[in-house]
């Protein structure tokens, strides 16, 4: 098991190295961080451009630039943005922001996916199955930005009207400036009020696809011989479904969820934008690509890739827990 994990980690490092080089190449070829200054009127003096080019290392050889970045990144120094802010400072804060948004969402989504998937499989072709199938497909078909906008418009509006006060919020992690003059319960309840809608939005949209995986995995398992055997041994139906069926049927979902979490850490881009959470997704889009900032893009890439690799590894380890046959010597 240990060697298996080590082998996987080594392979991942290679993947990270290659992907960072490819992304570096693409960014170096297409980004011009000086572009926005050429058309300032009046244009900044020539010494401004010379200085900035020098400072950002744009005059250096391509491979040298990559080496500078890589040798820094290995020691945890992700360089600075074009405006001189250390990238590492931003990255770690933003992982926490994204993390806060997705943790509850993933837990809710997994529970819902299992429950709905199992019910759908056990009661295949019954009204409840059709109802869930219909709802789930509606959710899958809804674009994230629209679903989020609907939540803000109707759920936030409805709940707030019901209580006659601002209970659910649609922007940011907390009422801006609240931490300056409030503390304790008032602050935490305000943060919860901000957390609900993004969580619900992410949870429902992630759960929808996951529940289909769970349903089909469960259907496969339900028709298998060992299930019939378990029933023949005299086990109750409930016990066979939960202990023998569900446990086996969880394996495919584990993969999907693990990959899903890894990707979500890279940025639930749309959800973050719509609810104005300054997390990883926003960092890539507006600070990285929007500002033509190569260090930001690479920093983002490295951290998100690490999360994808990490959760994949966890999925592999979980297989072994769920299915003793997979355990390696």
């Amino acid at each position, binding site marked *: 098991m240990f060697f298996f994990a080590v082998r996987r980690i080594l392979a991942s490092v290679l993947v990270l190295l290659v992907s960072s080089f490819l992304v570096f190449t693409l960014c170096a070829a297409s980004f*011009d961080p*000086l*572009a926005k*200054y*050429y*058309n*300032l*009127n*009046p*244009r*900044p*003096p020539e*010494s*401004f451009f010379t*200085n*900035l080019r020098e400072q950002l290392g744009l005059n250096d050889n391509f491979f040298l630039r990559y080496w500078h970045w890589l040798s820094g990144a290995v020691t945890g120094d992700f360089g600075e*943005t074009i*405006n*001189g*802010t250390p990238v590492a*400072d931003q990255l770690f*804060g*933003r992982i*926490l*922001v994204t993390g806060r948004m997705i943790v*509850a969402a993933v*837990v*809710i989504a997994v529970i819902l996916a299992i429950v709905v998937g199992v019910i759908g499989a056990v009661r295949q072709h019954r009204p409840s199955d059709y109802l869930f199938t219909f709802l789930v497909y509606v959710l899958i078909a809804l674009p994230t930005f629209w679903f989020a*906008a609907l939540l803000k418009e109707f759920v*936030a*509006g409805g*709940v*707030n009207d019901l*209580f*006659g*006060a*601002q*209970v659910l919020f*649609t*922007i*940011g*992690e*907390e*009422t*801006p*400036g609240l931490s*300056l003059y*409030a503390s304790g319960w*008032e602050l*935490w*309840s*305000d943060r*919860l*009020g901000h957390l609900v809608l993004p969580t619900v939005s992410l949870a429902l949209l992630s759960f929808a696809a996951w529940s289909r995986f769970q349903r089909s995995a469960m259907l496969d398992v339900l028709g298998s011989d060992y299930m019939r055997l378990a029933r023949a041994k005299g086990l109750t139906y409930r016990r066979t479904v*939960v*202990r023998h069926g569900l446990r086996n049927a969880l394996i495919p979902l584990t993969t999907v969820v693990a990959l899903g979490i890894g990707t979500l850490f890279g940025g639930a881009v749309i959800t973050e934008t*719509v*609810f*104005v959470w*300054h997390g990883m997704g926003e960092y890539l889009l507006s600070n990285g690509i929007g500002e033509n900032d190569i260090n930001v893009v690479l920093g983002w890439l490295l951290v998100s890739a690490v999360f994808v690799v990490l959760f994949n590894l966890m999925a592999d380890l979980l297989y072994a827990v769920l299915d003793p046959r997979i355990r390696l010597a």
Partner: protein
Amino acid sequence: MKLSKRSAAVLAAGVAGAMTLSACGGSDDGGGGGSESGGSGQVVFGESTDFPENLFPLISAGNATSTANIEAQLFPQTFEVQPDFTVKWNEELLTEEPVSEVTGDTQTVTYKLNPDAVWSDGEPITADDFDVAWRMQRSSDPANGGCPELLSTSGYEQITAVEGTDEGKTVTVTYSPPFADWQASFTGNNSPLFPAHVVDAPTQEELCAKVAAGWPIADGIPSDISGGPWQLKKENIDVGGQIAVLTPNENFWGEKPKVARLVFQNIGNDPTTAVQGLSRGELNMIYPQPQLDLVDQVADLAPNVESEISFGLSFEHLDFNSQDPHLADVNVRKAFALALDRQQVVDQTVGQFSSDAEVLNNHIWKTNQPEYEDNAPAEYNAANPEQAKQLLQQSGYTLGQDGVFTHPQRGRLAIQIDTTANNPLRQTTIEVMIPQLKAAGIEGTFNANTDIFNGPDKPTSLIAGGFQAAVFAWVGNPFVSAQPPIYQSPQGDAVGQNYARVGTPEIDALFAELIRTTERERQVEITNQIDVLLWDLMPTLPLYQKPTFIAYSSNIDGVVDNPTQAGPLWNASTWTVE
């Protein structure tokens, strides 16, 4: 699976409980803040541009709209640009209007500072603060003791001395040669006065090092210093949450703000987010790029939300590259302009926002500036395809069978019009032009050019000159010294910002006079003379000004949009919240 079932139940209960708790908590929270934020006297401004990374406005890192908005009332300025585009001296900072005198090749400007004017730490505002602003910005050449990080040295490079008398409360600034825009020195969110006792350094190198580092947002403004009605304290900056809160400067000598807090919350540029935030009361004011559905949605929020469209100083225009074989011929440039019905272009673009939208008929001044004169010859006021065809025929073009003119040497009259990618307004502008051009026998095509604003190493950029015609914007201002680089004749490879690459000695001579002329009346005369000449040379064709859009909760009193670089928060200290 017993364990996971149990833990799942616990988790489910926890989440459900958290939601219930948040609901209860939220309800008693609503009384103190949220939609009733007016009661606690704060205004939440939804900033749609990127959160600042640096608060020092003279360098690229601090050159952001968000920084300018935050600092609109933090550092004192000698003159202030008003919403009507006029320039007014700062009656809180100064005791009388500054006087400018020119003798020979020297100009002296005298400022009389208010004896009560102090920085937030109690230090008086004196000539030293003018002096340090000058020493920071007088040169960008390191060989000359300058700071290469500076975005601009305009005006400051012409200052030869800054002297203080009356304990520094009378400041005499000497320029040589005279500077036309002397009112722009020590003015504007991006070049105000700086506190010498905080920013100065013993040597010029150390001063430049301080300029280069600027004020990173995480460290705030050094000593939390302010010389205006508001103050930004370091503890009130939340970098992760992208929130900055201004509070009144207790030591401000003038009229103090009437609102307890001015909160900047970065909300990104998603229009739905802005509108929903405004309608839920989470935001009290937004200043986004106007888009049609955004404007309509905000209009539906009346009477709780007021909104206003203004036409600002940013204007779209068409640039003709005179290095193109066709467009090198002034007749072709004029025929192009004659073919266009600019009123229709306006109606299909900015005219959709407001019936006040007008065709812009001056290269230098905007329709709502007091200096504006409509200098466009009458034939450009409507589509004039016949006259366009005559001009083309004069230049040796013949109408081909496909209805497009061709020239024996230059070939078919097909002009590609470049513009920025992903800009619907500009794309519509060009799409409206194409059939108009067709009627005059000119084939126009649209091209989204992602390299348009890039540097000289990208062949299709404006600077490199690899384009035929281009639609993009310049930002005007009440001053004149930014104009010469756009219209002066290029000197060899040094095109400046004259991407049309054409000029005349007559225009150059007028500009040379303009940048040394300090009287406003004469400046206006010269600029309008230049504009008349530009219509005859036709290097560029002005189209229309771009709208700005402000929307705010109707319980805020005193909001007046300032569609210049001063921005919407220029008078935030005078607002009241009911």
